[in-house]
């Protein structure tokens, strides 16, 4: 291989039923400048140890399946480059705050469950028949939610969130960002239903404005901003109850 360099990958290994506790295994590899951490792991799997288990699909920061702790920080393995971690060794571990299923694969059922709870679709504000045509939206209306629709569900923000780590009942960054994406869509009419979740003890109020979620997000979704905007909305709704004529 032309212009290769060496680095040691230090990978967390865990096999349920076989391991009593996770261990670290070292894999020295040779890499070229253009190789991602994901490619390093693939090299190990293809040529050294076929039992090493990790998730990936697109290799281009689109599918969101290769999130892991790389050198202690939540990152997409396909978007992190080996050359940036010299001299190594480079520690690779599964996403924090999720139960390990096997090696670098974590159990994401809690997040999937949360996604299901936010009503992640548009419930039309006013039903229209086919003859009435499509729902129109101005560029300004689109802009209100567009960035929040860029989430790829990689869960890096959950691995970054200390509050989610302390108590996983917290709805957390990405689910709140997606909730906000629908709540701020001019075509949607299900705000009241979603606000119940925002206002609840599992909603936005567990957040202590750490902001690390937005820092690690590979898609600039800025989930911290979504949580903040919903704190304001939730506070308004808390006090609005006491206005005359409100329930």
């Amino acid at each position, binding site marked *: 291989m032309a212009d290769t360099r060496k680095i040691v990958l230090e990978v967390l290994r865990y096999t349920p039923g076989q391991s009593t506790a996770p261990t670290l295994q070292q894999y020295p590899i040779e890499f070229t400048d253009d190789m991602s951490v994901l490619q390093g792991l693939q090299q190990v799997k293809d040529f050294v140890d076929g039992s090493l288990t990790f998730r990936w699909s697109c290799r281009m920061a689109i599918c969101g399946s290769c999130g892991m702790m790389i050198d202690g920080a939540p990152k997409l393995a396909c978007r992190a480059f080996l050359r940036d971690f010299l001299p190594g060794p480079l520690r690779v571990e599964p996403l924090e705050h999720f139960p390990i299923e096997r090696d670098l694969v974590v159990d994401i059922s809690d997040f999937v469950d949360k996604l299901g709870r936010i009503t992640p679709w548009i419930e039309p504000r006013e039903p229209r028949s086919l003859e009435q045509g499509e729902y129109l939206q101005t560029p300004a209306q689109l802009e209100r939610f567009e960035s929040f629709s860029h989430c790829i569900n990689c869960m890096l923000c959950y691995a970054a969130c200390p509050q989610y780590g302390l108590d996983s009942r917290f709805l957390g960054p990405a689910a709140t960002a997606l909730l906000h994406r629908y709540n701020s869509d001019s075509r949607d009419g299900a705000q009241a239903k979603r606000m*119940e979740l925002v*206002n*609840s003890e599992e*909603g936005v109020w567990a957040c*202590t404005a750490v902001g690390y979620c937005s820092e690690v997000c590979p898609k600039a979704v800025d989930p911290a901003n979504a949580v903040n905007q919903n704190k304001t909305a939730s*506070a308004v709704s*808390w006090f609005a109850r006491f206005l005359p004529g409100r329930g």
Partner: protein
Amino acid sequence: MKRSNQPFFWLLFGAGGMLSALIGAMLVFITGVAAPLGLGVHADLMSHANAIAFARGIPGKLFLLVVVSLFLWHAAHRIYHSLHDLGIPPGPLAQAACYGTALLGTVVATVALLAIGF
């Protein structure tokens, strides 16, 4: 789903945070450094007579009550959430301890400001 009671405390927290950011450092400097050392302020700025006179006026009373109580509510909310980081789970007990202290401080300040006369 149970509605969180945090918005109420968050508002007091926000108000206290805003106020302390605006005047907190200045107050500490004037009352804690400048006045005792006589740095650029009148020698008896913080004298007993002056302080009493300030606390007896209506604007002085309001100022003292707002500063003491909002700073306390700000601290209580901050400590409540920091306890979680230290492994003490948030809940009715931690809430009672933190917000109770702020409430107590507010009541004591109110009573004292009234007791001191007009």
